[in-house]
């Protein structure tokens, strides 16, 4: 089943970027973010977060987005690996907790499995998952070359709580992380204690000012799709692989076995 929801603010933001940089999209498009099914979109190109597309093969004119790849923290972590600032990579420790509404357990696994493979530049070859009641998963994956990674996933935060996550890359030379040493949760750029109460802000994109890091990354990823439509088939193949990896994790839990990823799955 495919679930999407039109998101006018993000559409406006994306249109602004296309206009500013004179990018000519390949056709009519819209961004979607859960909720309303796309139905018969005709010639309309639907840009939807991959983790919200539950089928391995979404409708033909739908492009799965991997927005986290456009978050600055992940871009920089990848750079640290690619430029061998930390090298060779030996172990990854990833965690993500949500309230389970916008990002349920399977969506967390989708994102984290993509990050494991993308940041390491190495495919997952084995998965052993242990899950509880569809709300928690503790997964160990093995990558080609012997690197191992943990994915701690939980949809156990109370409703409305912000996502809490952590990504740590351990190498023979150096450790890289998106969290400050000796802290447990994300820090913010701005803390304001006022008569109106306590507020925190983390603004990461001046061109898309006002969007939080996740929404800004969603717009950036959609912009990238429209700028490089030739990559759409590869994006759809990538989505299929990630869906299959998630299914394999569920199968591993059901069978209480470590399962091998056969070939490239997709």
């Amino acid at each position, binding site marked *: 089943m495919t679930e999407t929801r039109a998101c006018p603010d993000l559409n406006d933001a994306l249109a602004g970027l296309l206009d500013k940089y004179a990018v000519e999209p390949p056709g009519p498009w819209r961004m979607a973010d859960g909720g309303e099914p796309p139905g018969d979109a005709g010639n309309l190109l639907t840009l939807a977060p991959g983790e919200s597309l539950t089928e391995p093969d979404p409708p033909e004119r739908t492009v799965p987005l991997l927005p986290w790849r456009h978050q600055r923290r992940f871009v920089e972590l990848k750079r640290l690996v690619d430029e061998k600032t930390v090298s060779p990579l030996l172990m990854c420790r990833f965690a993500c907790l949500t309230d389970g509404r916008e990002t349920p357990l399977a969506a967390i696994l989708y994102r984290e499995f993509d990050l494991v493979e993308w940041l390491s530049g190495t495919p997952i070859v084995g998965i052993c998952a242990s899950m509880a009641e569809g*709300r928690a998963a503790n997964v160990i994956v093995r990558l080609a070359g012997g690197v*191992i990674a943990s994915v*701690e996933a939980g949809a156990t935060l109370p409703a409305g709580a912000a996502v*809490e996550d952590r990504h740590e890359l351990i190498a023979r030379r150096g450790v890289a992380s998106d969290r400050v040493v000796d802290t447990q949760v994300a820090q913010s750029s701005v803390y304001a204690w006022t008569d109106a109460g306590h507020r925190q802000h983390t603004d990461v994109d001046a061109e898309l000012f006002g969007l939080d890091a996740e929404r800004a990354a969603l717009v950036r990823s959609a912009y990238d799709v429209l700028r490089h439509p030739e990559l759409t088939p590869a994006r759809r193949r990538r989505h299929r692989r990630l869906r299959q990896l998630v299914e394999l994790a569920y199968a591993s839990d059901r069978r209480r076995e470590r399962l091998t990823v056969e070939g490239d799955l997709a």
Partner: protein
Amino acid sequence: MKPLKIAMLSLTHGHTRKYFQTLASSPKLDWVAACAQDEAVRGRFERAVQGVPCYRDEEEMFDRHPEIEAAVLASANSEHLRQVEACARRGVHVLSMKIPTFDLAEYDRMIEVVEAAGVVCQIELELHYNPVVRRVKRLVAEGAVGRILSMQATNITLSPVWAFPWQGSPEQSYGSRVPLSDGDARFRGGALCDHPHVFDLIRWLTGSDFESVYADVAPNMRTDLEVEDLLLVNGRMADGCTFLLDPSWSRLEERLPEPGPGWEVFPKRMEVNLAIGGERGTLVADCFGPNVYHNGAPNDRYTVQYTYFDEWIGLVDEFVDCVRVGRTPQINLRWHRRTIEAMNACYRSIAAGQPIAF
């Protein structure tokens, strides 16, 4: 309560320096004697401690000090059975390091001799006396997160092998030379053997027992070690709680012969963090935080300076109380056996490449 006359054996365990401080300062203890494994260890002891006689022969120490009531076994794991037997023969109570032995036949022999002699044997798992863990335990007991669905725990440190070489020796740490798996040149006895705490904590916090464990090892950070230094463990408790444990030596260290300032390469040399997801919420905890930070001597390198709690106060309180009142410690040999079984199952899982059911 009369102070307990205590001795310390071998002086080669990673917590040895902590015991120097504890035995010297606790009003509940009267530190009578020590016995060093070798001359180098005795030299270090004599530089650190004054006024406590240090022997090289355990029998001589016990013969000369018949007043000794209890002993801290601050030794390699491979020495523990022999030392437990020696203590039991003399009716000396035992404060054991965190791994009595991985050999379950030896383990059962320890239970047998301790119970036959009627001495107390308390296992040193100091996190039971940590205030953060106590808070977590209370929150869980109060139902703050409801029934526990998932738990993650790290017990990650630098590697102590350069200061305590037995921890890099398969025979002295694990008790025998067992390859990790077919085709792997490494042996059992590394980081896993150093980190039983998280296996114990999940039993203590959930009140449940292991149903299955799966473990996998990464390539070593320290390529010159013949034991594992990076691994991950997941599995399930009998009550359905799923878990993930990281008992790695994933923080690099300077290879100092004696622990001290400048030991850290990674700013934080040790971490025990917990995350518990329940039906009604989530809690996360840093058992050794918050701390203070500096980038001063000796390496001008950003470093976490721990604001340690003193878990050893509670640990000694319980030990002395058990000896004087004749009570069984919370962490006794029988309780701890299941933790050792789970750790052994991790090694079996690494060899098999599959989860191991209990």
